[in-house]
């Protein structure tokens, strides 16, 4: 039995008057890849962003219910949000490297968290880039702008940037939707490798992707989790009619 990382209990989320999530109950375990699928606007990205409290910056957003990380409520009053985001890293849909050099992109996180020694930083940067399988491509151009990289390279750089602060969990919001199939394949392979060390939670519109890489899948619809369980069960033997309709492409 894998150790439970995130335990979400009865989560409601409102944007002002609109309820975007309804009574979400989910468990996410260590060293697993969990995929969220569902049509656009179903709340899966919103849910992902509650896990590292990125929704805090959205005006009028409030939540009810509990999200426990290693048994502790991440919305409790005494939680340091910055420390939480260090533990729970995030990769966005559109690659968003900072308009700085490759090196500075990776070093930004560690520097933020107090690492100043040049030799330590060099080591972290190299390790993060290696872990994200992009070291060979950028090692000769660490001082050049990260914006000169291709889209797929930029996304792997963003993964490296997230890894550099040594998170326990990696949230990925449709990380390959802006990329070509070859880059997508590279990043999928990378995710499978990263599973050994991290808990990965991914939002995807691509159901083949979910079947290829994830251990568990949750199907979202209109802010609710309709069905959740082992990926193989969800796709081969869905319990709910609506899940079946979605994965067979009859709507959404």
């Amino acid at each position: 039995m894998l150790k439970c990382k995130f335990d979400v209990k009865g989560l409601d989320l409102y944007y002002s008057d609109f309820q975007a999530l309804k009574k979400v109950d989910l468990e996410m375990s260590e060293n697993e890849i969990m995929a969220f699928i569902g049509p656009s606007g179903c709340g899966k990205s919103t849910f992902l962003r509650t896990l590292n409290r990125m929704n805090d910056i959205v005006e009028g957003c409030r939540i009810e219910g509990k999200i426990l990380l290693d048994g502790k409520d991440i919305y409790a009053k005494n939680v340091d949000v910055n420390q939480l985001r260090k533990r729970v890293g995030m990769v966005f849909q559109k690659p968003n490297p900072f308009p700085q050099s490759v090196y500075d992109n990776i070093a930004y996180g560690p520097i933020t968290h107090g690492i100043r020694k040049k030799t330590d930083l060099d080591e972290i940067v190299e390790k993060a880039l290696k872990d994200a399988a992009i070291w060979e491509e950028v090692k000769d151009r660490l001082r050049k702008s990260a914006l000169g990289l291709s889209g797929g390279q930029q996304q792997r750089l963003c993964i490296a940037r997230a890894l550099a602060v040594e998170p326990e969990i990696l949230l990925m919001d449709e990380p390959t939707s802006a990329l070509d199939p070859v880059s997508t394949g590279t990043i999928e392979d990378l995710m499978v490798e990263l599973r050994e060390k991290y808990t990965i939670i991914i939002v995807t519109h691509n159901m083949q992707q979910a079947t290829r890489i994830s251990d568990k899948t949750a199907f979202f619809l209109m802010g609710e989790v309709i069905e959740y369980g082992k990926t193989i069960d969800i796709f081969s033997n869905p319990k709910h009619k609506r899940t079946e309709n979605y994965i067979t492409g009859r709507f959404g």
Partner: protein
Amino acid sequence: MRNVKDRLRAWDFKEILAVWVFRICACGSIAAIALICLFLFLGGGPAIIEIGLTNFLFGRSWAPLNIPAEFGVLPMIAGSVYITVGAVIIGVPIGIFTAVFLAFMCPKKLHKLLKPIINLLAGIPSVVYGFFGMRAIVPVIRNISLALTDGGSGASILSASVLLGIMILPTIIAISESSIRAISKEYYEGALALGASHVRSVFFVVVPAAKSGILASVVLGIGRAVGETMAVVMVAGNQAMIPIFPEGIFRGGRSLTANIVLEMAYATDLHRDALIATAIVLFCFIFLINIIFTFLVRKDKN
């Protein structure tokens, strides 16, 4: 058949007419610049030749009524540089921090109140600024000057710098704010997601990303400070002396613009032409600043 042809011809005529109207309008502004250049260089050029370029640019004494008259604009160049540098030191940090505040830290309601006020700041006539400077800034600087050095009337380089520092704020704030806002929110979110605080995300990711826009705002502010005349004349003291740092900033100084406006009314012959030559120097300064601005904006686009 003929009917259609006629109509086509009529349409052609309108089209051609419209193109020419636009063309003439466009030529108008180019002609204005060309005429200004022509006037400046025809009017001031002979004076520079007569005085001698080095005597004119590096002469330390401006005494047009002496016999023989002396026409050195170095004191005015120094005055303009001092005043402008001072204005930049005072105005740029305040302007940039205000822009960051407006873009990232200001509640929406406060923004609605502040933004029009800052725009209003840009619309106040410079003579009103000058008056404010005379009544509010000069006395304060006089007290500081008396305390730190052994004299000074308050009408000084420093007073002009403080006043200009305020006057360039709207330019710097408006352009910096819009360039900071133009930086995509993804950078900000990317930094937050790494565990950086709000302030750290803004200052170490968003602001550096907007740096060429911010630099452009500073350059435009410098342009405004160099060209400002009325407000400077009213608070700077206007003595044609080279200021010596540091006490010099508490003493009077004269800018290039002030030199022209103060003496043009009674100047004749070579004196008058030397003032036009002063305008050439000013023109070169502004031209240089515009080139830097264009360069920065172009670099931003790339």
